[in-house]
Every structure is written in C-alpha cells, then in structure tokens.
C-alpha cells in the first residue's frame, strides 16, 4: 500500500477488480453454454417437425416418396455400440486393473502413453485400420467391422477411467483387506471394483455415448444399409452414417430426416450423460476418509 492510497479507495479498487473477474467468468460460462443452446435450438426447429412415430418404426423410403423413418439406423446404432462395448469393456476394464493394481513403472508408462495417444487418434484412422485388418480379408463391410472400430475407440477411454477410479480406492482399504488375509485378486474383484463400480460404469457409459456419435470409423467398415440387417456379417445401418448420407443427398425430404436423426442422436447422448450423472450422484456415501 502506497502512502497516497487511503483504505477507502483501496477497498473500492479491490471490489472493482473482483467484479471484473466475476464478469469475465460469467462471459466465459456463457460462451461455453451458447453452442449447446444453439445446436439444441437449431435441431429442435428443423428436426422436431419430422419426428413422429414412423420415424422410429419405419425404414427409409425410396427416393421420391415422403415419409419413412430411420428405425433400422436407430437399432443399428444400438447393435454397433453393443458390439463395441463387448470388445471395449472387458479389455478396457482389465487394462485399467492392470495399470492400477499390478503394473509397475516402465510398463505402466508405456501403456498409459499408448492409451493417451490412441485417445487422440483421429477416428477416421480407426476406420481405415479396421478396413485393412477386417473388411478386406472378410471381403466386405459388416456390423462386426463397425463394432470393432468403435470398440477400439472405447478401449483407451475405459482403461484410463478404470485406472483413475481404482487409484481413488484408498490405501487404507488395501491394508484392511491385506490384514484380513484376503488374497489380492479377491480384494480387487470384490472390494476395489465394488467401491469403484459407479465411476467405472459412468466411464463406460460416457465412452459408449462418445462412440455412438462417431461417423468416420463406420464409413469404411459398415457404410449403411437401407434395410434391416439379417446378420452381423453384413453392413448395418447406423444413425450417424444415415445422417451423413441423408445430409449430403440432394433431396429436401432427406435433409429433414437428417435433422430429425441428429436430434435423436443428440438426445440419446444427453440421456446417457444425465444417466451417468444420476448413477454417480445417487446413494453416494458421505466422504469420510
């Protein structure tokens, strides 16, 4: 404090600074919220009118006919995410357990590094990789290939959440289990995973929501299907790809359907996110550690 500043002016300056910083924070928060609000508003305006019962129950109509829906794409998306989870969840959770409970220094560093790199890998790369590894040898796109591409994308996401959640299990629990003569693997399966299960489940749901919206990995692996798939070894429709196909098509009717599909996709992602939050929020014991 210099000699000229009286306590009164000093206080006013501090309050001004506080107000400025608060205002800056509010502006930033608004900037974060705006795109979501805009997207939601835009999708509702353009998509809601095309959303009706038939959208969820019918196949796309041939060019020139109005009506029809994306039932096959909606079901296809669920099938693809299910396949992806069947691959991504076991590998991801077991990998996370390895990192948190068994791995040591160097190996852990490499696995973590690899997972982080894979997390940042552009999704089109996954599409190409699976195209080369699966689609070409199997001589054709398939739901399997699409699910595999999405599953690969889920693995690093789930590895890291599982590891983080297990690391949060306090050391005192490990000691307690050790002192009861409980074998290590039983501690991991019955106590650590049980303690961390909500966090891991949340991570799995968020990873599923994330890959459910991916288009690029599917373009090479299962580039859509106008009809119901009869087998997982043939291409399957999916919402993102169907939206993409419709959106680049020349017909207004297709565009309307694309907007409706985007709206459904967004609400599915929203529902999973809210669901994940409910899981972590509910029955949370008070943190006494």
């Amino acid at each position, binding site marked *: 404090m210099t000699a000229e500043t009286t306590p009164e002016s000093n206080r006013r300056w501090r309050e001004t600074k506080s107000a400025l910083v608060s205002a800056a924070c509010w502006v930033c928060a608004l900037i974060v919220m705006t795109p979501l609000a805009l997207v939601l508003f835009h999708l509702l305006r353009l998509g809601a009118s095309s959303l009706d019962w038939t959208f969820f129950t019918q196949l796309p109509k041939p060019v020139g006919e109005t009506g029809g829906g994306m039932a096959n794409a909606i079901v296809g998306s669920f099938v693809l995410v299910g396949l992806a989870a069947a691959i991504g969840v076991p590998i991801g959770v077991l990998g996370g357990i390895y990192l948190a409970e068994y791995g040591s220094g160097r190996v852990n560093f490499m696995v973590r590094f690899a997972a982080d790199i894979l997390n940042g890998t552009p999704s089109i790369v996954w599409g190409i990789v699976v195209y080369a590894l699966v689609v070409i040898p199997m001589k054709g796109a398939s739901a399997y290939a699409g699910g595999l591409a999405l599953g690969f994308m889920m693995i690093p996401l789930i590895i890291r959440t599982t590891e983080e959640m297990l690391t949060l299990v306090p050391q005192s629990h490990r*000691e307690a289990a*050790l002192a*009861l*003569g409980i074998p290590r693997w039983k*501690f991991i399966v019955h106590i650590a995973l049980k303690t961390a299960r909500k966090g891991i489940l949340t991570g799995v749901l968020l990873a599923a929501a994330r890959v459910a919206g991916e288009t690029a990995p599917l373009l090479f692996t299962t580039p859509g299907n106008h009809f119901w798939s009869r087998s997982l070894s043939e291409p399957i429709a999916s919402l993102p790809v169907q939206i993409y196909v419709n959106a680049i098509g020349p017909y207004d009717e297709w565009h309307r359907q694309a907007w409706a599909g985007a709206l459904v996709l967004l609400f599915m992602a929203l529902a999973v996110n809210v669901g994940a939050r409910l899981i972590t929020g509910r029955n949370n014991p008070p943190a006494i550690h």
Partner: protein
Amino acid sequence: MTASPIIQPGQPPQTPPSRVVIPPPVTFEVSQLNVWFSGHQALRDINLKIPSKAVTAIIGPSGCGKSTLLRCLNRMHDMAPGARVEGRITLFGEDLYSSNVDPTVVRRRVGMVFQKSNPFPAMSIAENVTVGLRLNGVKTKSVLAERMERALRMAALWDEVKDRLRLGALRLSGGQQQRLCIARALAMEPEVLLMDEPASALDPLATGRIEELILELKEQLTLVIVTHNMQQAARISGFTAFLYLGGLVEFDLTSKIFTNPSQQQTEDYVTGRFG
C-alpha cells in the same frame, strides 16, 4: 522414519537382555529382528517375547519403530516396496517368515486394527463384518450370521447395530466404525489382535469404550497395541515395551515400567521429560 528433533538423548540404545520372566505360553518370540526401509534401518536387534492372553503395549516417541514392529508380526511389510526384514519371529513356536508359510494365512491368524477406522464404504455393516470370511471361502449363511453376531458382540457393537445391519458402514459414528473394524478382524477368529493406535482418532468417550473392549478381549486372545498415550498404556496393558530410535530400551510389566523402570531413558520418557 527419523527421530523427531526434540528428542535429546542421542545414542541409539543397546537392547538389554529382557529381565522380565514371561509366563508361558508365549505368543510371539522375536529374536534379532532388524528391519530396513530402502536402506534406512527402522528396527535394530529387537528381542522380545509377547505373552499370550494379555495386553502388551508398545510405546515410544514418533518414528521409533512401534508400527514397524507391529507390522512385522503379521507380515504386513511383505507388500511394502523396499522393505527388508531380518531375524526370526515365531508365532506359537512356528517361524512366521519361513518360506513355506503363506503370509495370507498368517494374517488370518493375526488380525489387525488400524489408527483410522477403515470400513469398506460400498458394503453394509453386516457385509463388512463377514467380508474376511466370505472372501476366504465361507459360504454357509448360518455360519456367516453366527460369526457376525459373535464378532459384533465381542466388539460391543451388537446392541447398537443389530437393527440396521443392512445400512452402509459409513452411517456409523467414528467410534462405532472403529469397533466395526475390530469386529471385522474378530470375525476371522484370530489368535492375536494387533492394534495400531486404535483410539487416537476418537473422542474420550469412544476411547473409553475401546479400552473396555480391549480389557474384555484379553481373556480370549493376545493383544499387542501401539499407543502414543501413556495413560492408556498404563490403564490397559499388562506388559509394556519401550522403543527408542529403532531399538528396544526396556520390556517389562507395565506396572514396573511406569513406576520403577530399570533404564534412565524409559524413566525420562514415561515421566514426560522427552518425547
């Protein structure tokens, strides 16, 4: 683990021969125990016999190796990276560190309670008590229920929780949680219970209940308790070991340690002149 700077007398003590005659049976016999953590010596040349069905208190200033000694008795150091244990410890004559002894079996026979209560938060009160049994293969419901009730009664917790066994363990108060941890250890029907400052995080009332409990338990098993609280050691233990700078200064009847110790360092410590 270094001695705190306020401790004045500088020389690590030489362990004198234990003068006290321990009435048989002896639970633990510790001979020439040395422990290092990453090169730092935490315990040196400990020789000690811990009597059965009695309370033995381990006292000494912070960092003197009390907890280290306790954790040698159920092989908790096996998991600690950089820990090295040399010497011999027998449990009822059986070498605890022999290569054909499974440390998890040792830990089932020698239970442990920690300074901070650590019930498993994702489990109910009942599940916490039976977890050790269940994860060691006991499946019969009636056996589990019976052992749970017995353990909770032994831990003087049954009457307080019998109507809410399905509730989460963290709904209990701090003192109740600690008694739950004692019940969890007792459910394994251990021959020994090790306690590492079991009451230091509790208020005087809860501490009193734990101390009563310890006095009741000594009728049935051997207890070894690390404590910072010398009044507590005097109240509850029959034997006291005084550790200083990783060495055993004196081991004797508690009454003798607190009234007429044979070592000057012990007298200085128990009278509050240092530590």
